[in-house]
């Protein structure tokens, strides 16, 4: 590691980047110090990713200067920035599934046998990987194939890979989005270690609680503009949020709890792929959350109920009708709506207009006789754009052109149009801006007050605690606990989720 452990390592001024038709970055400035964590904050589309891609050499700037490690630099590609000690941990996974952990970590810079150029020293590679992971407090066998790992473990391999070279500056793009609490703690320990070694860190995150936990400075961006840089210790979170969204958000979680009605959904010893003997129920007028760690089997339960995965044993009752076998088409007929966690591939058809997405799940119901009617479609499009306040000039725009929050509203609209009365929503706010989140929460609240029942699957504890009436916690495919609204605490949920006292070690 570098001798110098303090002082500025990266200074960028007046950085401007244009893409055909858009100004992605407009005179951005950023200064990073050795041994400090610099948090980049901003909504989706604020330009954070573009900025770090310029730092890591993926894009080249149109204007502005970059000083790195004491001199003005002009990196041409990723290889050059890597040689200069800049490393990036990507949000999306870039691992080779059929290679071992060690092969992935040293991909592109494998240790060679001395005196035999071109021959990989596999033994050394495995040993080095072991040492490196050990020094970072990770306990994984370097010979394991990557495809056998959980998503969270893969993310940790990405981290190790980024640190396998000598680094002076590490960029982390939303590294915790798919990690469980246990691993987040581990990651933060690694961050602390890097800080002690004098490595500068640029950290992109959506999670407000992380700012106080690890941040030193925070730079806020909005619509490609530089807003401000503040000290993480001194700033108040609500201020950061209003800097990000450009307005004040009164209250994140707002609920008007109503008197729940009759039970509309109930499972009876439901068993399937990755879950066993699940017994849960949802009443009309309730938001019930299914909480737990990633991989606990929550999504699998939802998909089985919707008919996308087989039910092995048991059954469930939906509006008084018992089902042992079901298909999506039948589920929709039985007033069930399912919003997938993967909006872009399982929810929306991005290449089709908003209005066409809105009628997609109710084609037969909307168009009697099987003939499309443009006027009806326009009317439905207009109705939901107004009712759900979807930010678009027209319902004829493509769904793919919308932001995450507005896309989620389109999917909600699609299900409302089917006339369903029970919604299963998987990760309702994943990848959605802070500003849009509170709108989604308000919408869900409004729906249950109109008599809908909602089963929500969420990995964000704040969200679970903030808007649920009741919470079931799952661990390893089984329901381990049920909590009422007044019992909801982070500690208690984690206790059920990991099966021990305190989920964060």
């Amino acid at each position, binding site marked *: 590691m570098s001798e110098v452990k303090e002082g500025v390592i990266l200074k960028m001024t007046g950085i401007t980047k244009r893409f*055909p*038709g*858009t100004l992605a970055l407009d005179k951005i400035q950023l200064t990073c110090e050795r041994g400090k964590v610099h948090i980049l904050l901003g909504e989706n589309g604020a330009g954070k990713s573009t900025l770090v891609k310029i730092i890591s050499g993926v894009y080249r700037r149109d204007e502005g200067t970059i000083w790195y490690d004491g001199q003005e630099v002009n990196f041409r590609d990723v290889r050059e920035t890597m040689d200069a000690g800049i490393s990036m941990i990507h949000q999306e996974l870039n691992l080779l599934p059929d290679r071992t952990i060690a092969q992935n970590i040293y991909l592109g810079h494998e240790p060679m046998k001395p005196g035999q150029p071109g021959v990989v020293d596999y033994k050394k590679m495995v040993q080095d990987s072991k040492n490196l992971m050990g020094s970072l407090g990770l306990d994984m066998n370097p010979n394991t194939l990557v495809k056998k790992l959980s998503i969270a473990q893969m993310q940790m391999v990405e981290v190790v890979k980024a640190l396998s070279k000598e680094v002076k500056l590490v960029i982390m793009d939303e590294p915790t989005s798919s990690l469980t609490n246990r691993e987040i703690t581990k990651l933060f320990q690694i961050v602390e270690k890097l800080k002690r070694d004098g490595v500068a860190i640029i950290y992109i995150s959506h999670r407000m609680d992380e700012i106080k936990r690890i941040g030193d400075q925070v730079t806020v961006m909005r619509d490609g503009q530089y807003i401000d840089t503040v000290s993480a210790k001194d700033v108040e979170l609500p201020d950061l949020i209003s800097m990000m969204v450009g307005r004040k958000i009164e209250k994140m979680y707002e609920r008007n709890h109503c008197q729940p009605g009759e039970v509309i959904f109930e499972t009876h010893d439901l068993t399937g792929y990755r879950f066993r003997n699940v017994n849960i129920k949802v009443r009309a007028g309730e938001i019930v959350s299914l909480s737990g760690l990633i991989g606990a089997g929550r999504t699998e339960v939802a998909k089985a109920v*919707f008919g*996308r995965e087989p039910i092995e044993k048991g059954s469930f009752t939906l509006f008084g009708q018992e089902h042992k076998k079901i298909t*999506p*088409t039948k*589920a*929709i007929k039985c007033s069930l709506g*399912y919003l*997938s966690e993967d909006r872009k*591939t*399982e*929810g*929306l*058809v*991005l*290449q*089709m*207009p908003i209005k*066409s997405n809105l009628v*997609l*799940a109710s*084609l*037969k119901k909307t*168009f009697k006789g*099987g*003939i*499309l009617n443009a006027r009806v479609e326009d009317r439905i499009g207009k109705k939901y754009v107004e009712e759900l306040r979807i930010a678009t000039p*027209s319902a*004829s*725009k*493509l769904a793919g052109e919308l932001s995450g929050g507005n896309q989620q509203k389109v999917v909600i609209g*699609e299900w409302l149009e*089917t006339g369903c009365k029970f919604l299963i929503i998987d990760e309702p706010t994943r990848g959605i801006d802070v500003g849009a989140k509170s709108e989604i929460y308000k919408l869900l609240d409004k729906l249950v007050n109109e008599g809908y029942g909602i089963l929500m699957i969420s990995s964000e504890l704040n969200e679970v605690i903030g808007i649920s009436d009741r919470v079931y916690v799952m661990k390893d495919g089984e329901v381990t606990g049920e909590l009422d609204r007044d019992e909801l605490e982070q500690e208690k949920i984690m206790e059920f989720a990991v099966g021990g006292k305190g989920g964060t070690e």
Partner: protein
Amino acid sequence: MSLKTKNRIDLISRFLILLVVILVLALLQPNAFLNASNLSQVIFQQAPFTILMAFGMSLAIISNGIDISMASNMVLSSYFSAPYFQNGQYLLGILVSLGVGVGFGLCNGILISKVKIEPFIATFSIDFVALGLAYVACDGVYIYGFPDTFRSLTNGSLIPGIPNIALFTILVFALLFFVTKCTIYGRALYTVGHNRTAAGFSGIRTDNIILSVYVINGLLASLTGILYLSRLNAADPTIKGTLTIDSIAAALIGGIAFGGGKGSVLNTVIGALVIMFIRNGMNIMGVSTNWQQAVVGFVILFSIFYERGLSILMAKFAEKKK
């Protein structure tokens, strides 16, 4: 810019390609090319076969698949049904032809939608099976000479000036256009083409939609086969010729992109006409057949670059409007 406007611009620009081809040929060969008899011959007599086959290819591509087997299916169904038509047993002939055509279409559909074999691989194999069986059935004997009633299917005219084959193609076109653009079946087809998973999550029976596409293709192959018998006055396995390639080319030139969900059967007609006019024009000019292949290849390449250029242009235009 809305999707509708985009599609319309795309379609109009494809139509321009067709016009340019016609214009260039008209300039080069003002007499032989640009006369009513030649134009009507290409449009009404030669193009319908390529158009009908390309319809099937387009449906498959729109559903994010491909159907390599149509031309062979056509050969086979025409071969099996030829003896009945020759003897004037028309109903029986049609039943046999449909049975073979739809049967093989169903095989494709089941292999692709239920057994989950890649459309290319499934139809590629069926292509061999169908053509192989056609050769077995043929065994070197061409069935030649059909009754005049049967031949009037292509060379007769129910409506003066429009040969029956053209009339039939127009009817098929109108039906397919209506079904794909104006019904919920069509909407489901495009949705499956764009994103099969999301379609499934929206309650669309994606397997059935995909199955239906290949059954429709079998139907089209069988009907085209009957018409070919009538036109050529013979059942001959060599008629498969370049139909498969031509129908893929027609779809691509017309603007139906691989990846699914884009274009309509109107695009197909334009693409097929471009190819047929190029072939016709070059025949008239006495350019060798090999050059025709090369030129069609160039036009496909051109249409792909054209597609990209067009979308960039449209994006820029949309920005300016903002």
